[in-house]
């Protein structure tokens, strides 16, 4: 028989304090992560925003985004005024005022001018890698979701995808270096001495030579594409699987072929999902440093990739600057001083802004997509 004493509590129950304590601890942990993340972001914003934004219209320091990267020269003039000039302007100053007008001269590599080179390089690398990865990744996903049945081949493919997803980026760097930089075949008049294998193809004097693409935009894109492939495949397969089975059944029942069914009844509905998740892959490609260190990136380059080329395709075989590698250079190779901060925090800020923009974009798109595509 239930009595009042049994059910009505008097005072605070025993477990209550433990309960509150645990909740407080867990929420403390959680919110300290959130706070640390926001603090880090805040620090970069506070120190980096002054480089990119100005108080005067148009409020954005466009020259930081559009100028080439140069060495920064810092000096006093004869009246004691401090000057900070990038190398090109410094040389102008030098020719007009002469060496006598310069006191306390210091120079800081990579710290002057803007960062257009790294930005352009990163954009090219990212676009190239994503296009390659999307083409092969979506095709592979179509096979996995539309054609595959249980078979040893499919099992091997899934195992390969699973394992590829976990390979550290530096190992992709080694892979890209030994395969794309040193070993993939090229067609050339003059095989290099380190070629693995070369044979003439009897068209002109050309040879096929397995000597690699050298450190180049091409090699970098290919390496990054390999790295991102498992992500694209998994995401695309999920989007394809989300298309209701009924669509396919209905189409097949009307006598359409598999390919017609895929093209007309599956791909159009899966495409938004595929593109959204590939946006997330873009952030990863744009942010990686280790795979491009040996395959594509250079620390300093005077020309933009397309400048000074006789043949537009040469852009593919030229090295590029890249934002993450640029930041690595700024962090590792030059000291932190009041004169270099502008370049250091500014580059990081621009980079972070880019990444944040893309990742929030993909989050919002994904949320929208989920609410819109309900079958």
């Amino acid at each position, binding site marked *: *028989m239930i009595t*009042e004493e049994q*059910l*009505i*509590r008097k005072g605070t*129950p025993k477990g209550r304090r433990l309960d509150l304590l645990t909740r407080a601890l867990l929420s403390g942990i959680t919110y300290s992560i959130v706070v640390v993340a926001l603090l880090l972001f805040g620090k970069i914003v506070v120190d980096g925003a002054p480089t990119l934004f100005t108080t005067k219209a148009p409020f954005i320091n466009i020259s930081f985004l559009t100028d080439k990267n140069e060495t920064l020269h810092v000096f006093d003039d004869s009246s004691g005024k401090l000057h900070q000039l990038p190398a090109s302007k410094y040389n102008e100053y030098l020719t007009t005022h002469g060496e006598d007008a310069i006191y306390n001269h210091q120079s800081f590599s990579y710290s002057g001018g803007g960062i257009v080179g790294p930005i352009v390089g990163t954009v090219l690398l990212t676009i190239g890698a994503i296009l390659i990865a999307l083409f092969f990744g979506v095709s592979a996903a179509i096979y996995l979701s539309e054609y595959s049945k249980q078979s040893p081949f499919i099992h091997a493919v899934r195992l390969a995808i699973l394992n590829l997803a976990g390979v550290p980026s530096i190992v992709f760097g080694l892979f890209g270096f030994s395969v794309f930089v040193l070993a993939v075949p090229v067609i050339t008049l003059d095989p290099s001495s380190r070629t693995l294998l070369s044979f003439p193809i009897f068209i002109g004097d050309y040879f096929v030579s397995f000597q690699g693409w050298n450190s180049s935009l091409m090699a970098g894109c290919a390496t990054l594409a390999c790295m991102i492939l498992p992500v694209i495949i998994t995401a695309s397969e999920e989007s394809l699987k989300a298309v209701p089975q009924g669509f396919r059944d209905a189409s097949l029942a009307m006598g359409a072929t598999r390919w017609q069914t895929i093209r007309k009844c599956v791909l159009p509905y899966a495409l938004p999902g595929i593109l959204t998740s590939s946006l997330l892959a873009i952030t990863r490609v744009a942010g990686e440093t280790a795979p491009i260190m040996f395959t594509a990136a250079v620390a300093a380059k005077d020309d933009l990739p397309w400048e000074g080329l006789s043949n537009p395709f040469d852009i593919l075989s030229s090295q590029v600057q890249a934002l993450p590698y640029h930041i690595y250079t700024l962090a590792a190779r030059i000291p932190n001083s009041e004169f270099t901060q502008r370049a250091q925090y500014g580059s990081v800020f621009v980079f972070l802004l880019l990444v944040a923009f893309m990742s929030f974009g993909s989050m919002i798109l994904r949320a929208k997509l989920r609410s819109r595509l309900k079958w």
Partner: protein
Amino acid sequence: MQTAIQIENLSFCYGDKQVLFDVSMEIPAHQITALIGPSGCGKSTLLRCINRINDRIAGAHISGGSLKIHHIDVMRPDIDLLKLRRQIGMVFQKYNPFPKSIFENVAYGLRIAGMKDKTQLQDTVEKALTNAALWDEVKDRLHASAFGLSGGQQQRLCIARAIANEPEILLMDEPCAALDPLATLKIEELLHSLKSQYTIVIVTHNMAQASRCSDQTAFMYLGNLIEFDKTTKIFSNPSEKKTEQYITGSFG
């Protein structure tokens, strides 16, 4: 006859949507009361109000009336909800043993209530399993995973888990819906043997089951209690036309 649960003008909402309208009934102690009615009529909701397990759902709340257990309002702010639930066992539609051993499943309620003594635990578990007519089948594999049992056995394990706390009231939410006829039969036999010790409220879709097992039957429709009476009366001579239509299979 003693009243175990008094429900007076109970209304219940999920957010803005009202699902129970002014339900009033008195459920007698040590009897089996069946709640029947078509899907979505609120019978499960009513059942889940009794041990306030509906609190788990955000926005669900009692919007009027009262529900008293032995004259204690379950909505009283100073009520110890955990103790209340220990006094009211519940068995769910889909058998849901924990991913633990058979023994640990039954001992779970005892342990969280603070029982530590090993022999006492063992005795209570044995008693609960015996009462649930499961002891003979599992006594040799008490420490094996509960998932190794058949569906009917798993459901009886859940009943054993519920009665290990020695509750006053046992709530059953369509306990046989996921079981085959033989296992159902076993559970029904079990209900009869448990009746002397517990006040049982059972939600069922199966009218034959209601007529076979219960002493009292309540028929609900669209959140309203249409008729509540002795089972024999409901199934032989219902007062309401709706009830008659339902039990003869004209709708639902």
